[in-house]
C-alpha cells in the first residue's frame, strides 16, 4: 500500500489542514476568542506554580548571588547617603519652583496616560526577549507604545491583538529607542544586547558620560514619551578612537520576573 493511503498519513494530513486553517483564521483576526481562552484558562495554575516555586527560586538565587549581594549592598549604602543629600537639595528646589509657579500662574503639565496590564508570560522558551500581556487594542494599546514598570522603561509593544499584546523587552538585541543623558542632554540610542542587558550607543565622543548618570527617553518617537528613566550609565565600552561612544546601562528592573506593567496610551 502506498504511504499516502495509510491511516497515519491521513490523520497527519487532516491535522495539517486544520493547522493551516487556524493560521488563516488568525491572520483575519477571527481566532481572537480562542487566543483569549488559551491565554486566560491556565492562569490560575500558572499563578499557583509561580507562587509555590518562588521560595525555591529565591533560595537558590540568593546562595548563587551572595557575593555580589554583599558588594551591591555596600554600593547601595553609599548611594543612599548621596541620594539623601540630593533629596534635601531637591526639596529646596521644589519649594522655590512652587513659589515661582504660583507667581507666574503656571498650569500643571498634563501627565501621560497609562494602561495597567498583567504579564501573562515572560519569554517562556528563552528564544526571544518578549513578554505577553493581557491588554490589547481594545484597551487602547498600539504597536510602538512604551511599556513601563516601576517608572523605568522595560520595552515597547510590537504586536497588539484585541485583548493581548506582545512586548519586546529593552534587553532584546532587536530593541532600540532614542535616549538622552538626563544631566547633559547628550542624545544617543538605547539598544538591547544579546546576553548583556542594555547599551547606550551613538553618543558623540565629546559627550560627558560619567558612571551613574541617569539616562531617559528622548521623546523623539511620538509613542515613547519623554523623560521615562531607562537606567544609569555603567562602564564605557568604546575606545577613544571609535567614531561613537558606547556604554553599558544598568537598570534595577528584573526583566525576567515582571508581573505588572504600564503601557503608554
Amino acid at each position, binding site marked *: 500500500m502506498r504511504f499516502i493511503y495509510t491511516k497515519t498519513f491521513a490523520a497527519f494530513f487532516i491535522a495539517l489542514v486544520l493547522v493551516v486553517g*487556524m493560521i488563516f483564521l488568525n491572520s483575519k483576526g477571527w481566532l481572537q476568542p480562542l487566543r483569549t481562552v488559551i491565554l486566560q484558562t491556565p492562569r490560575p495554575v500558572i499563578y499557583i506554580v509561580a507562587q509555590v*516555586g518562588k521560595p525555591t527560586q529565591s533560595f537558590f538565587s540568593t546562595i548563587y548571588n551572595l557575593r555580589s549581594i554583599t558588594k551591591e549592598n555596600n554600593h547601595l549604602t553609599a548611594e543612599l547617603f548621596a541620594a539623601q543629600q540630593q533629596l534635601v537639595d531637591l526639596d529646596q528646589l521644589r519649594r522655590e519652583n512652587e513659589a515661582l509657579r504660583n507667581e507666574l500662574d503656571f498650569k500643571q503639565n498634563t501627565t501621560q496616560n497609562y494602561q495597567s496590564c498583567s504579564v501573562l508570560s515572560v519569554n517562556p522558551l*528563552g528564544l*526571544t526577549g518578549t513578554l505577553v500581556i493581557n491588554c490589547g487594542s481594545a484597551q487602547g494599546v498600539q504597536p510602538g507604545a512604551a511599556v513601563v514598570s516601576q517608572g523605568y522603561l522595560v520595552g515597547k509593544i510590537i504586536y497588539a491583538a484585541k485583548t493581548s499584546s506582545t512586548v519586546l523587552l529593552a534587553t532584546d538585541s532587536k530593541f532600540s529607542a532614542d535616549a538622552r543623558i538626563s544631566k547633559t542632554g547628550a542624545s544617543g540610542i538605547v539598544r538591547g544586547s544579546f546576553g548583556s542587558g542594555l547599551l547606550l550607543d551613538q553618543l558623540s565622543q565629546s559627550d560627558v558620560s560619567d558612571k551613574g548618570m541617569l539616562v531617559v527617553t528622548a521623546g523623539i518617537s511620538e509613542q515613547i514619551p519623554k523623560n521615562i528613566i531607562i537606567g544609569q550609565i555603567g562602564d564605557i565600552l568604546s575606545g577613544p578612537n571609535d567614531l561613537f561612544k558606547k556604554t553599558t546601562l544598568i537598570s534595577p528592573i528584573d526583566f525576567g520576573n515582571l508581573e505588572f506593567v504600564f503601557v503608554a496610551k
Partner: protein
Amino acid sequence: MKYLAYFLLIVLLLALNVGFFAHITIRGATVDLLLLLTVLVSLQKEFSPYLFVAVVSGLFLDCYTGLFFGSFLLSFLLASFLIRLIAQQVVMYELNWKYVFLVLAGAIFFIDVFVWGYNVAAVHYNLGTFEFGFEVVRSHFIPEFVYSAALLYPVYILMTAVNVGLLELERNRKFR
C-alpha cells in the same frame, strides 16, 4: 477521556514551564516541557494522541511566546509526524533511552531552526513583526538539550502516570 487527560497534562506542563522553569536558565536557554511530552507521546507504542498533543502544545506555545502565529503549531505537528514515522519505519516502539535522546536532540534542532526560519520569512513578507537571530538558536542548542535531557525522565513518569490512570479507568468501566 484520553484527550481530556492529555489536555490537563499539557496545561500542567505549560504552567511549570511559564511559572517556574522559564526563570531558571542555563546560559540563557530553558527547557520546553511541551516538546518533551510531544516527543515521548510520539514514541509511544500503543495508539497515542500524538497529533492532538502536538497541535494543542503548539497552539499554547504560539500564544504564550508571542511569536508569529503558527511557529510552534506547524513545527510541533511536523516534528511529531516525523518522529512517529521514524519510530514506525526505522527504530522500534519500546522506549530505548539511547534513541530517545537522539530523537530529542533532532527534535530540538528541527523546532528551533523551523521557528527561526518561519519568523524570518514572516518578517520578510511583512506578515510578522519580530524575528530573532540564528545566534540564539546556535548558542541555545547544547544548554537546551542538556536541560531537556535532565527533565525527560520526570515528564516520562508524569505521562506514564496519566496512561496508567487511563488504563485503570478503562478496566473499571469494562468490569462494571
